[in-house]
């Protein structure tokens, strides 16, 4: 049943379970969720993703997340191998990110904000799903203990938020697909940076990024009439964001550990990291990883991710080391802190 060369994974029972109350249903739902995310991402890395396949996978993702919201009383403690830990990871990081971004969402009703925040979470989930490291799962669960505790109470509100934001995320994926397809300057699903891009080098930065991404990714889709749409959405992003949100607020809200992982995703997207500000940001973000507990397997995986990305690894001092000992990190911390200040000024000024 498994194609040649494919790693055999442990799927949940093959018997199709349509009853949400059955115990295998949740594990199957989570499995489908992670596989779908994985598939979508890998499909997007191709120069020409098949539209039919992308739409079917996106619809499945939407349905799976909707099903999750239908059954709020999910037992998070189910002792199963990878599936439960990844589910815990997903739920906790999801709600964690949601909590942190809730303020950002509230601040702006612009399309871009709604799009950027959930896509952050979606990318986080994808990274977590693809990394498949139990250590990573544990870390992230411990990283946001509050949200896990609050999770039961807030599940009612979170569920609707998550459903809404996830479908918004999926919509944004399709927009991104359209943008790569149409060759428009609209940014691809590297939207976690979108809010920062608008602030740093507004439309120029954002548009340049999108163009570069498009050149790297491309798509077989036409571009003529689509140029109008992304320009207007860039306009929207610029106007509402700058008026309502300050840089400090946003930076406080953002859990940079998750953003760092997103940088990994960005690098994977194949534009070759040609975006200067992106590299600067990564350097800026690096010191935040040092704030984690020393024996942090997460930074190991982060560094590993960075190593895989030639463009980023050449810039990041931390990526060249394979150890994550605190002794190594702290000398850089001061240096990076100064760079951080410098960068903050640049970003605020522009």
């Amino acid at each position, binding site marked *: *049943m*498994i*194609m*040649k060369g*494919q790693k055999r*994974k442990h*799927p*949940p029972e*093959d*018997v*199709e*379970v*349509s009853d949400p109350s059955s115990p295998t249903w949740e594990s*199957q*739902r989570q*499995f*489908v969720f992670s*596989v779908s995310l994985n*598939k979508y991402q890998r499909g997007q890395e191709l*120069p*020409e993703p*098949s*539209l*039919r*396949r992308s*739409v*079917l996978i*996106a*619809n*499945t993702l939407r*349905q*799976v997340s909707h*099903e999750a919201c239908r059954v709020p009383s999910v037992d998070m403690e189910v002792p199963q191998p990878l599936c439960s830990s990844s589910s815990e990871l997903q739920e906790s990081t999801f709600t964690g990110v949601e909590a942190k971004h809730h303020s950002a969402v509230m601040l702006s009703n612009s399309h871009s904000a709604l799009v950027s925040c959930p896509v952050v979470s979606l990318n986080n989930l994808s990274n977590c799903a693809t990394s498949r490291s139990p250590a990573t799962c544990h870390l992230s669960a411990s990283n946001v203990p509050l949200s896990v505790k609050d999770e039961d109470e807030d599940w009612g509100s979170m569920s609707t938020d998550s459903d809404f934001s996830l479908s918004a995320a999926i*919509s*944004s994926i*399709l*927009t991104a*697909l*359209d943008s790569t*397809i149409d*060759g428009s300057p609209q940014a691809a699903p590297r939207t976690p940076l979108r809010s920062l891009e608008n602030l740093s080098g507004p439309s120029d930065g954002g548009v340049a990024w999108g163009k570069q991404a498009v*050149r*790297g990714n*491309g*798509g*077989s*889709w*036409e*571009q003529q009439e689509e140029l109008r*749409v992304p320009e207007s959405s860039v306009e929207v992003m610029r106007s509402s964001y700058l008026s309502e949100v300050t840089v400090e607020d946003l930076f406080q809200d953002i859990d940079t550990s998750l953003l760092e992982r997103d940088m990994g995703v960005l690098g994977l997207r194949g534009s070759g990291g040609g975006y200067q500000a992106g590299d600067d940001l990564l350097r800026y973000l690096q010191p935040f990883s040092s704030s984690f507990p020393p024996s942090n397997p997460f930074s190991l995986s982060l560094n590993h991710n960075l190593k895989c990305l030639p463009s980023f690894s050449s810039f990041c001092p931390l990526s060249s080391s394979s150890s994550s000992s605190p002794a190594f990190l702290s000398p850089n911390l001061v240096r990076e802190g100064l760079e951080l200040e410098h960068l903050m000024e640049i970003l605020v000024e522009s």
Partner: protein
Amino acid sequence: MDGARMWHVSEPLGVIHSDLCPFSADIISTVEFNYSGELLATGDKGGRVVIFQHEQESKNRPHLRGEYNVYSTFQSHEPEFDYLKSLEIEEKINKIRWLPQQNAAHFLLSTNDKTIKLWKISERDKRAEGYNLKDEDGRLRDPFRITSLRVPVLMPMDLMVEASPRRIFANAHTYHINSISVNSDHETYLSADDLRINLWHLEITDRSFNIVDIKPANMEELTEVITAAECHPHQCNVFVYSSSKGTIRLCDMRAAALCDRHSKFFEEPEDPSSRSFFSEIISSISDVKFSHSGRYMMTRDYLSVKVWDLNMENRPVETYQVHEYLRSKLCSLYENDCIFDKFECCWNGSDSAIMTGSYNNFFRMFDRNTRRDITLEASRESSKPRATLKPRKVSTGGKRKKDEISVDSLDFNKKILHTAWHPKDNVIAVAATNNLYIFQDKIN
């Protein structure tokens, strides 16, 4: 199938394509008989078209129909590079459709993801000899040596089959073309991609009419794509297109220039008891074909084939399970991407039987009248010349009988996506990856 009809391998070889062709064996991507059944065209992943011709019955083997031999081979599409988008356009032939024959030459349409081409295949079996101004080998004759005039005479020569591109219909599709269909007026044809359907005139290559456009203004709202389209066999104003959500829309071109609003909408309500995470994916229709009569149409989704009466929109009149044993394996099939495979289906000439492919090089035939079905395998081992194909069975229960194959032993890399049925006789063509099998039934 009824007991009197048994399928066997066509002479001299069941396996043709890869053995007789001097080119490297490439995956066959489309198979199509022409209107008379005399010619069988195949397209492959390398952009080549190979046409087989039905030889006349041989006198020393009268109990068999004639064989199919290679008639013409040509390179239809080449790989292209879109410099603007930095993308390679695959040369793989997605579909071939024949035009009805109007003179000695044969015409067919072949398409890849972006460009449709009209090819003329003509025979040359005579050559003019005795030109005045040049020699037989083409060299110009010395004018002073010409002392008399002669009329060139047509002399027979070895048959030469030439294929020449007559029209190239390009730059009309942003997305990947999945279907082409010749209209019954023999003047127009439609081409469909994921989001749009265009209507062309065979003589005009620089423009086409867009008749269906389901692209949403906001791509975020895209949840459905077009998967197949076909013109009605008799009513030149009617066509259908299927979607990834398992729906079929019938449109009348007389109603409006843009047929975004359907005239009929075919959808079977979902069975809530069999609902799963993959319900939508397996409902995605991979092929739609009108019956020869024009009264029915057939759709293929992942697990079944459905026959619809055009007068009844709310459910199909017949449903045939192709490989229901895969329903419990959908999770794994999703993981290994097999769930996205697009199987085709076809009618026989009298619309009494339908055929479609499956995995493990199995293909299935359903008799609509007797409601009997048969599973056959297209493989070298079981297809010696003149051998009779043995019906195969997949064991679904715990106990596996002798000669049955269990679901877990199925080879999901061996899939039969493309099949074709002769429009008049009981001859079928089955494409198994890079091999073409031609089977015919035994005349008792």
